[in-house]
């Protein structure tokens, strides 16, 4: 999906975005894009610059440098057109408790420029998408936290924006509601580009197609989660009668070997090669008693810790 859509112009194009606070805090010269069909997740420790970045994208903060384009409109020069293409869910969800869901979404739709005639249909669609139809006439103050979160997402979708920005969309929700919201985000991905900030690594791993790790206002790592095959294959091998580590390194297609413990090895394939068949053949030929061979995907948590911890020790 990302390949297909990456041919389209990006929905968000950020170039050299900076916002400097005293003591070198803020964000420094960020560059990134977001395409339709992507769920781009900003990850980072507290103070990394996630909220500052989102605030600039939503015009709450003025950048000190760089530019932001949303759906082709420069946010500084054509803020209204850019904002029309943008749906934003801040954390916590911004609601008017004294309104019903229908009144609230109607108000949001009208402010986004939807005509009075088209507003009921837009509200009904947003309610259907977010599962709010059954409670659309209830006062927001009487709704559960999960429904309130959905109402916040519904207001971000009511005008059918191309870009949806969600700040901590599952914060404070029980596991079932969080799962439903993630499923909803997965569905939204089909027609929108989604930029999301979260501190939950499992959530990022579950829904992201791409992750940007921020630290001290810099993008320190970018990884795709929808194309794990693009990176060199890593294999975990368990042998009952293992040879020397150096012997495994001679198998065609194996670039490097790391011994984890007795009989357990981590093998790094040469780029573009899959040495699994050669490994199995060698194990059978030399009676290494192969017990397990499987691809090894380092978890996002491992990646995150490695990147952030690596920077801290550097």
């Amino acid at each position, binding site marked *: 999906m990302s390949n297909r859509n990456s041919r389209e112009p990006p929905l968000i194009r950020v170039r050299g975005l900076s916002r400097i606070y005293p003591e070198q805090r803020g964000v420094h010269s960020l560059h990134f894009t977001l395409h339709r069909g992507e769920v781009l997740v900003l990850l980072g420790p507290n103070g990394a610059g996630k909220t500052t970045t989102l605030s600039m994208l*939503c015009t709450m903060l003025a950048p000190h440098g760089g530019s932001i384009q949303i759906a082709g409109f420069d946010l500084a020069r054509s803020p*209204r057109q850019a904002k029309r293409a943008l749906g934003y869910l801040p954390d916590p969800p911004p609601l008017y408790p004294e309104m019903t869901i229908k009144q609230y979404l109607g108000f949001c739709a009208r402010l986004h420029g939807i005509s009075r005639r088209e507003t009921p249909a837009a509200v009904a669609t947003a309610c259907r998408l977010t599962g709010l139809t059954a409670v659309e006439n209830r006062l927001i103050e009487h709704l559960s936290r999960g429904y309130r979160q959905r109402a916040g997402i519904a207001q971000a979708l009511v005008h059918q924006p191309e870009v949806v920005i969600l700040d901590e969309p599952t914060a404070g929700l029980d596991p079932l509601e969080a799962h439903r919201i993630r499923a909803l985000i997965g569905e939204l991905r089909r027609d929108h580009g989604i930029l999301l900030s979260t501190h939950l690594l499992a959530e990022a791993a579950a829904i992201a197609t791409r992750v940007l790790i921020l630290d001290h206002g810099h993008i320190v790592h970018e990884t795709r989660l929808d194309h794990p095959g693009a990176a060199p294959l890593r294999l975990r091998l368990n042998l009952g009668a293992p040879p020397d580590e150096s012997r495994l390194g001679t198998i065609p297609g194996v670039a490097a070997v790391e011994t984890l413990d007795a009989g357990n090895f981590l093998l790094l394939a040469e780029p573009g090669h899959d040495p699994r068949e050669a490994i199995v053949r060698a194990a059978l030929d030399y009676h290494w008693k192969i017990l397990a061979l499987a691809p090894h995907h380092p978890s996002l948590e491992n990646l995150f810790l490695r990147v952030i911890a690596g920077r801290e020790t550097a």
Partner: protein
Amino acid sequence: MRSVAIVVYSQLMNGFRNRWILGLTILFALFAVGIAYAGGATSGHIGYTSLATTITSQASLVAFLIPLIALLLGYDAVVGEREQGTLLLLLSYPLSRGQMLIGKFLGHLLILFIAILVGFGLAAGLSSWQAGGSDLGRIFVAYGIFILSASLFGAAFLGLAYIVSVRAVERTRAAGMALLIWFFFVVVFDLALLAVLVGTGGNPAERVIIPYVLLLNPVDVFRLVNLLRFGHGAGAMTLSGAVMHGALGWLSLLGILFLWGIIPVSLAIWRFRRSEI
């Protein structure tokens, strides 16, 4: 303009939902009708007195009440949205900060205006009925001017409330500040002026300056508009009436009240455009 109208409409609906409009209208109607009907009770007379007496009595009441109500309506217009998190939402919409503030201000002003119009409109109707149907035109013109001046007066304090709301970081601090503003303009200002006049014996230079110092207080400007328009000498019985006598006419003072209605809210918009959220 369309965005402003949507915010005004939303604010107005909110006023109906939380019963601000209903409550204020009943309050104004009770006081206005009460004064129109029983304003002469102290002189042993119940019923219609004179239009001038009725309106000047109502103006005295309004001078205390409207600033308080306008400040209560507006003090959390911005800081309340900020605390609720909805300010972030509104600013992410295709709506400028100025449009947002103007929309909220006009919505609040409309709430105040509806309450004043209905409340004092009832008083006008009662006055016409008590007058036996005579002088209808005069009564309605008089109440028209009164309602206009009361609305501008409300706009002045609503604007002051918006300045507080834009600057405040917490709703509770904004409420405290709003009460201080009410206390200063309604109670302290005239007392301080009186103290200066009495203390110095009212030298000629002060007699020239003081009328213009009164213009710095919308409460005095509002009182003067109504005293000079309807007082027929009653204005001279008050400090402000006495010192203003001859310096400016009621129409000029209505113009100054109009400026009071727009300058504070303009300052609030200016400040809001430059503030960081």
